[in-house]
């Protein structure tokens, strides 16, 4: 009987020990997880405020005494592979800078990965560049939906993204510590300028807005909606379309039925060219046709739509097209043309590759201004010192703690004689007041 008691007591003791060990182990796991989590969350503190991921103690991620590593993700394959030219533009300028001694003795090393214009792929590449390659920052990433998908990750990791290949508002309003500037004009700013120019300079009275029915097209559409009552003109029809539509006969017919004098087209290149072809096909040739810079400010549009059809189309630019008359004597553009055509002979040199090159110019200028002691604090201060900087190929670049757009200066262009020519002086938009000023 006594043996039975001993056995029961022993079993209870073992159970108690097991429970004790289990609770102890659980506590240790929770403790270690919490410690581990804390060490990984370099981007946010307990209140959720962002902190720098660029600096870890005295070391700055991606920066050594003789090198700075920069990451880039653009589509290098698939239907949107044209955006791979952004990486080519960046590489061209980095090579030029490196040949001339680098920045404060440091060489610039670009790691450009293929994002396939797909958010899931771009997220994987972002993790690879940030966590494995430990880049200093990301430069010139393309694709609005991809940037939307990765925005939170970069902010959590505390990685600066600059000169995005997207003009969507969400990256600049409200200003984020980790997003600075776009390679192309902000969609809302550009459309505001279009509307202003159409009414005040082209005497537009009856306007049609044709827009791509997605995040990109709707940004511009909403910008017009916000100010349409401020002008002495009427938006008489709004025609949405899906980006991959093949047939634009009905869209053209809707515009014709509305009897408008001006069409503002917010789209990528193919629909912009297709719609204008359809206008010509149904005899609608005496209207002002204004196309967003992403879709219209490129000489390849003459080839797509046909020279006679594309002639007269308005758009906007923030970088002069190399073949345009105003580019003559522009040293920055001449240097670009010389460097890019040498690096990529026979390839298209207007439009997309210019975005990458110009974005790299802004980045390098900020590095110069940040000085030898490079970290995120000195880099941000350097960016905030840009006040209508015009020494690169961009028409003007401005940053401030309240203005993270970068590109708020642009000019209207017109397709004329096989090239894209500037038809205005510089137009400045003030993000704080919403005012548009023509120089």
């Amino acid at each position, binding site marked *: 009987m006594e043996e039975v008691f001993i056995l029961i007591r022993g079993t209870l003791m073992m159970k108690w020990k097991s429970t004790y060990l289990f609770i102890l182990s659980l506590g240790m796991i929770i403790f270690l997880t919490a410690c581990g989590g804390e060490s990984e969350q370099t981007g946010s503190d307990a209140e959720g405020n962002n902190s720098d991921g660029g600096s870890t103690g005295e070391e700055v991620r991606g920066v050594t005494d003789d090198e700075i590593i920069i990451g880039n993700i653009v589509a290098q*394959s*698939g*239907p*949107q*592979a*044209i955006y791979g030219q952004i990486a080519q533009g960046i590489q061209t300028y980095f090579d030029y800078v490196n040949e001339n001694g680098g920045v404060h003795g440091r060489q610039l090393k670009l790691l450009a990965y293929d994002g396939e214009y797909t958010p899931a792929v771009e997220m994987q590449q972002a993790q690879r560049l940030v966590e494995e390659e430990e880049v200093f920052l990301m430069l010139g990433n393309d694709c609005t939906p991809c940037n939307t998908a990765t925005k939170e990750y970069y902010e959590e990791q505390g990685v600066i993204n600059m000169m995005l290949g997207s003009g969507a508002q969400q990256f600049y309003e409200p200003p984020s510590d980790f997003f600075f500037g776009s390679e192309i004009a902000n969609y809302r700013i550009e459309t505001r300028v279009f509307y202003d120019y159409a009414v005040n300079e082209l005497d537009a009275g009856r306007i049609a807005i044709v827009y791509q*029915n997605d995040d990109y097209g709707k940004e511009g559409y909403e910008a017009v909606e916000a100010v349409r009552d401020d002008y002495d003109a009427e938006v008489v029809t709004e025609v*949405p*379309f*899906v980006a*991959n*539509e*093949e*047939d634009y*006969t*009905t*869209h053209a*017919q*809707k515009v*014709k*039925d509305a009897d408008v004098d001006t069409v503002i087209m917010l789209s990528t*290149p*193919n629909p912009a*060219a*297709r719609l204008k072809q359809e206008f*010509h*096909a*149904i*005899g609608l040739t005496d209207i002002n046709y204004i196309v967003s810079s992403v879709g219209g400010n490129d000489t*390849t549009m003459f*080839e*797509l*739509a*046909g020279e006679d059809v594309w002639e007269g189309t308005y758009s906007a630019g923030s970088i002069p097209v190399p073949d345009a008359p105003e580019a003559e004597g522009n040293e920055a553009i001449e240097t670009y043309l010389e460097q890019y055509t040498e690096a990529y002979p026979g390839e*298209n040199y207007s439009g997309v590759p210019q975005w990458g090159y110009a974005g790299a110019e802004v980045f390098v200028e900020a590095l110069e201004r940040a000085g030898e002691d490079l970290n995120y604090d000195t880099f941000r201060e350097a960016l905030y010192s840009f006040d209508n900087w015009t020494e690169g190929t961009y028409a003007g670049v401005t940053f401030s703690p309240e203005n993270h757009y970068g590109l708020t200066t642009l000019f209207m262009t017109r397709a004329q004689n096989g090239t894209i020519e500037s038809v205005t002086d510089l137009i400045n938009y003030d993000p704080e007041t919403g005012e548009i000023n023509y120089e």
Partner: protein
Amino acid sequence: MEALLQITFGGLIFGSIYALAAIGIVMIYKTTDVVNFAHGEMAMITTFISFTFLQMVGLSFFVSFLLALIFAAIFGMTVYQAIIKRVQNAPPLNQIVVTLGLFLAFNGIAGLIWGYTPHGYPSALRGDSFQVGSVFMSPHQLFILGITLALMILFFILFKYTKIGLAMRATQQDMQTSSLMGIKVSQVFNLTWAAGAILGGVAGILTAPITYLEPSMMIDILIMGFAAAVFGGFVNLPGAVIGGLIVGVYSNWVSYYIGSELSVAFVFLLIVLVLYVKPTGLFGAKYVKKV
């Protein structure tokens, strides 16, 4: 009324392109029992070849057109001999996976060779639009309509009234018996794949001035081509053409009166309704295969 006529005419033009894509798909299926999902990408490659003759070699449009169609015939036969023949007797699912694989492979190869930047492509017949009543039409649009109707009649006669057409129909019904009856089945299949690729090539070359030349130019056309083929009955050539024209016009009406975002959805809704009422498609006959 003026707008209705104009968008109806526009629908007939796109409908003709869908019809051309559908004829090629139907023809290959009707003879070989293979649903060729790579049809559009084969057409795209033929169009790029014609563009190469046109731009790089500097040949005229019609010479480039003819040379590209010769290429298409060889290309179609090569695809059949090198790949499809091996899976001719495989289960339908395997055949589908093979043609889907070819679709992806051809798309990727075209991207590597010619890049993804869209190119403008010249029209077969250049010239300004002119008005007939209240409807504007261009020489290229009339060329598309004419070619579609001509090819439909040509292939209908070929299938119905010629020996080769009879051989094609017999082969589709019973490959073994046809072979025993002296029909050279392999030659019939070669010819069918060549003709199918030529039809696709014509569709591609007529589409390129409208949708521009790029590796993904035929993807949406192929989807609507399949819709047209199913609508028409899938084994009926005039049915495929009429299906294509109905899909084109109906799609434009939906786009104009309801919204362009909904046109594809409404097209497939119509097809569901048609198949619900007549499961073999509008012109398809109930077909019992002898065993």
